[in-house]
């Protein structure tokens, strides 16, 4: 009698382990693998010790001196400027990509014209050829543009944004096209009968209905343009005009160990906007990913 209650929990534990417990073990192992580098960088950003070696004891000290120093006391590393540049470049690129892509997706989804199918196929293929392959030509092209219009040439953020917009019609448009197709064409017809022109239909009927995909494309474009290194490093040479990716890399590559905790503080601050956006829009992003977007 006394044996039964004692055996039952053990039996259950084994059953639980066989059913879902082992899944949790794997889950925890991978969760640690995933989260550890991020916990580590957070810990070293709060460590006033300064060096890479000093960061190895996690959360041994907690203060915000690295953040303060990075924001206010380092004229050689204009972190605030990098941050704002990145934000501006990311937001403008994201918004413009959404706009250009939505225009194209509307045409592909709602109109029938010669070259439509070829156009869609091309969009799928374009993503296979990232712009960074032509980085030499982009550099020389912007250099030539500088001679005519210095305001949009080399070492300007507008120039960089223009280059990024070259990739606006790509897989993004393809994603949008798919989503636009789910909006019933009868809505367009109704608007047309009510006397709305094509532009009014687009802006007031279609765009509000495709909000989720606009968010996904905007976010993906924001993330890819803010973490882009190659083109940004070639186009932006003046330290105050650089982006976080270029600035933080040059900062850390000068003296990895000595600058480590300052870099960590920068990394934490740089990661907050994209991560917050990402987690906030998680549901939409995941559905966008399954449709074929690669970060």
């Amino acid at each position, binding site marked *: 009698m006394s044996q039964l209650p004692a055996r039952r929990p053990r039996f259950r534990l084994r059953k639980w382990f066989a059913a879902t417990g082992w899944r949790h073990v794997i889950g925890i192992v991978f969760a640690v693998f995933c989260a550890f580098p991020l916990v580590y960088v957070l810990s070293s950003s709060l460590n006033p010790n300064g060096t890479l070696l000093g*960061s190895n004891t996690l959360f041994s000290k907690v203060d915000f001196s690295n953040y303060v120093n990075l924001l206010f006391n380092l004229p050689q590393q204009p972190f605030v400027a990098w941050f704002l540049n990145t934000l501006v470049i990311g937001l403008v690129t994201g918004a413009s990509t959404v706009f250009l892509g939505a225009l194209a997706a509307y045409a592909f989804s709602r109109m029938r014209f010669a070259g439509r199918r070829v156009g869609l196929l091309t969009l799928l293929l374009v993503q296979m050829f990232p*712009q960074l*392959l032509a980085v*030499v030509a982009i550099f020389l*092209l912007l250099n030539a543009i500088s001679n005519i219009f210095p305001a949009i040439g080399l070492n300007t953020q507008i120039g960089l944004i223009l280059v990024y917009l070259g990739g*606006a019609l790509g897989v993004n448009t393809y994603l949008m096209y798919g989503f636009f197709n789910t909006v019933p064409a009868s809505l367009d017809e109704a608007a047309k009968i009510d006397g709305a022109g094509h532009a009014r239909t687009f802006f007031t009927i279609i765009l509000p209905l495709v909000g989720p995909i606009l968010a996904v494309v905007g976010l993906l474009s924001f993330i890819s343009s803010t973490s882009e290194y190659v083109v940004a490093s070639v186009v932006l040479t003046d330290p105050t005009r650089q982006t976080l990716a270029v600035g933080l890399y040059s900062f850390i590559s000068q003296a990895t160990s000595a600058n480590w905790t300052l870099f960590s503080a920068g990394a934490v601050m740089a990661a907050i906007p994209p991560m917050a956006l990402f987690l906030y829009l998680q549901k939409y992003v995941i559905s966008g990913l399954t*449709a074929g977007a690669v970060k």
Partner: protein
Amino acid sequence: MTIAPEAPPEPPTERPRRTVLRPTPSLSVILIKIASLGVLDAVVLYALFVLLMGGSYLVFALALIGLIAINVIYFSKRMLPGKYLAPGLVFLLIFQVFVVGYSAYIAFTNFGDGHNGTKADAITGIVANSLSRVPDSPTYAVTVVQGPNGLGLLTTTPSGTVQVGDPKNPLHTITDAQLSGGKAVSAPGYTTLSFQDLLTKQTQVAALVVPISANPNDGAIRTADGSTGFLYKSNLSYDAKADTFTDSSSGAVYRDDGNGEYASSDGKKLSPGWTVVVGFKNFAQAFGDQSIRGPLLSTIVWTFAFAFLSVFLTFAVGLFLAVVFNDPRMRGKKIYRVIMILPYAFPGFLSALVWAGLMNPQFGFINQVLLGGATVPWLTDPTLAKVSILIVNTWLGFPYMFLVCTGALQSIPEEVVEAAKMDGARAWATFRQIKLPLLMVSLAPLLISTFAFNFNNFNVIYLLTGGGPTDVNASINVGSTDILITLVYKVAFATASGRNYGLASAFAILIFIVVATVSVIGFRRTRALEEIN
């Protein structure tokens, strides 16, 4: 929510012209349209003018065609799709298509350091490089000015003639300059540099060479202090008729050797050279030069291995986790999912840098704490660095695969699995023979995109190891973890031996060919393209 392209709505087959009143755009819309097109036209026309003056006829023609096309599209009552496609297409054509064509052109030239400009620039440059002060030079009073072409000199000869010029425009006499004590101090159209500016631009002022006439052999004015200048002449004299340089001291004759430079009969070359089309020389150099071919071939092999293994590892780990977590009885799946999405949400360039710190051989966390003070050369040993890169890239990439595999697994109909069970299939057989083939159908296009993405995954390589450890035997800056795209970047921009745009573009063209082949094969074997109607 599904985003996957579904059957599009009924195509608007015919325009119901009879019943619908064609809406007339309001006046303000028309005005905005005309104003914005007007601004665009004005800007592009200016650019066209400059291009024509500069002799860039091909670009001029392309830009002109583009401008006409845009105006036709937006002023025509028809061509509605064009109105919506044009804005994005303009950027696509300039910054995706044109630059690819331009890369292809550069790949066949010797463009790079020492071969940067036109032949005329090179002749001026050679003369400027070999200038020495004429022993009995008169003293010119000079003022450094900022003109339309950058820095220039405003000179007053001992006899009182006032002239102005800059490196591109030889000195020419002007009469409307302001004089102060017999010295011209300012001229209309030019800004005189203040003493403060002079100090900050000291090196540029010292390098300033203003020819005194259109004939480079006449010499040029240079100034060391920004207030007095002297006549400098080259010991190389240029003979325009024979197209040769003659060294007046040694008597050596330098001729155009066809490779964009002047060379003497004993092989001495004058610097700078100029850009010329060299045919397949860059490709020949890439595959013919022993010290480039070896590293290039191993880079190609590693690029494929890296891209393939990255896809394989991330997919294997992602699929494994998706299967593990795809159990309705399991609790807390959401928490795991949020944690596993973190590496994907964290900006990629930062991840690579953070891992570079973690893997630092002397001070990094992995060696110091996890391995108790070992000195494993994670990023500095040729083989281990490759392993490290794969570990980091798996960390970066498996969350994506986990997410898409989860989605794909959940979309497999329950009945299919049930039917397999009824037929007596074990769990492994069900997975291997039912689920996996179904998954591959929907995931194959994603795997191809991931392969293509990793094939050019610059950030993880360059920010983690910089392509290193460097191969010291190669004549180009290449390391054992370099993939093709980092090699392109390093040859073009980050090398001590000088930038070589031509060779870098030749490598880029190789990548284009490889990626195009892979995607054509890949897309043919999947049904991705057939979904488009």
